[in-house]
């Protein structure tokens, strides 16, 4: 198992390092990530959502559905724990 784990880790690492070559440089303001979608968030957030915090604006408004999903994930985890850990009422748990 350890060998397999090692191989998997090394292969993943190799893949990651292979991709690094063409990655944009650290903090490049013209990288696609910072220039395609995000400028509009920065510019329009205050006007469209009246929220100075752009992260909040995107989180709760532009991508509000993700946040609903996020809440649901927490709810799911909570219910999952209830389902798994609650012991039977009658007769001692095992």
């Amino acid at each position, binding site marked *: 198992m350890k060998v397999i784990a090692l191989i998997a880790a090394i292969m993943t690492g190799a*893949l*990651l390092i*292979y*991709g690094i*070559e*063409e*990655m*944009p440089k650290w903090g490049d303001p013209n*990288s*696609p*990530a*910072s*220039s*395609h*979608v*995000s400028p*509009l*968030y920065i510019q329009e957030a205050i006007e469209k959502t009246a929220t100075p915090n752009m992260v909040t604006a995107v989180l709760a*408004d*532009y*991508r*509000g*559905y*993700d946040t*609903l*999903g*996020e809440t*649901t*994930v927490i*709810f*799911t*985890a909570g*219910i*999952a*724990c*209830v*389902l*798994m850990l*609650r012991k*039977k*009422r009658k007769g001692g748990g095992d």
Partner: protein
Amino acid sequence: MAEQFPALIIVVPLIAAFFIPVIGWWKKQLCYPWVVAVLVVTFISSLGIINTIMTTGKFSYRLGGWAPPWGIEYALDYLNAFVLVIVSFISLMVAVYSKKSVEDELPEKTAPFYTLFLLLVAGLLGIVVTGDVFNLFVFLEISSLSCYALIAIGEEGAPIASFNYVIMGTIGACFYLLGVGYLYIATGSLNMADLAVILPNMYHSKIILVAFAFFTVGVMVKGAVFPLHIWMPDAYSTAPSAVSALIAPLMTKVAAYVMIRIMFTIFQPRFSVETVPVMTVLGWLSFIAIFAGGIKALAQTDLKKMLVYILVAEVGYIVMGVSVANKIGLTGAILHILNDAFMMACLFLVVGAISYRIGTRDIHKLHNLNKIMPFTMGAFTITALSMAGIPPACGFFSKWYLILGTIEAGQWAFAAALLCSSLINAVLFFRVIECAYFKPMEPAYANDGGETHMVQRDEAPLTMLVPIVIMAAGIILLGIFSGNIISSIIQFAVPASF
């Protein structure tokens, strides 16, 4: 109304799930009708969606009114509307079925069980409906988390199987997330349609290549594609029967959908087929999967374990159809998503009913089952014939298109694998059928009675039987009407780039 269906199909089960703990705290018996009612609404919504698409063509739904790619968009086309109908219908059937099996297996946990059941369905529907790669990840995690928990409360060995699933599933989800990150770095977008426009200009990029690799591996883990299926047999076979009947047919199919979506919508077939040899690799992996699954299934005596290994092979079918990357093969793959969902659901439902009534899943102890449970065994037989590729059951037709696809791609070995696999399936299922129908009486059932104990009919309860019979009838009808399904839906669901 019609344009609100995409939102309804997610929101209704999601909100309804939040209410179940309250309802369960008030009156436990109400959980079941509530879930069934909600899933009926979901099913109607999915029918509404596919109806809208068939009359007016594909459409998208902007959540919160934000235009893509800034906001999240639900992009509905033939492919995901088709999968939505499958998911919502099968989950409705399993929900109807679940009543007795939950009472039997999890008497104290009704409310949280149904909450997670609904969340799982909502997650699966969300994966299918969304047009945003990150939103897909969120729904993937909702469905995975509920899946982990639902599996963990199964029989002996379930927690450990579930833990392995958590580890593998998280690796899969994280790889998917990494793929999203790489695409985001390269393009700055998260919207599938937007990505599909931007990406073709950068197919030479190594980042895209790495992203594609991570996507593929991630989806393969989630979809239990050989050889990343190792978590699956234990997890699915130890889960409670209603849970296996839900996740076994749907989880793998939804993952297959995501695979088709990524490979042929986000990326163009030009990239997926020509730039990287991933199709060849996938094809040969599914080739091995079909044999490995079949042979492992032959070694099982537990009916449910056997089905799980067959599922490995069935996933291989779909991936093989994808990997030949031509129109007819993909038609077969998409048709098989439908057919296999029905067949697997029906088989798992039957196995659940058998273990509910007889208390065993050992295939050598099913003597006289045709007399005890004639309808259940009838459904089992129909499905078994379908798995073995006997017309007019639906399994034959998907195999037909898959074989045509492999022939068109010139992959003779794949065609041979598909044929061998139906023979293996025939052996697997006729073992059971022979035992249930033809083996002379043996005191396996109610062996406390005398030697000449006359077998009494003891059919599964109605809530179990009705879904089983509907699924079995569906298998025949899907076969007969496969032509209509292909001409009215699937031929448009195959990505336009073919």
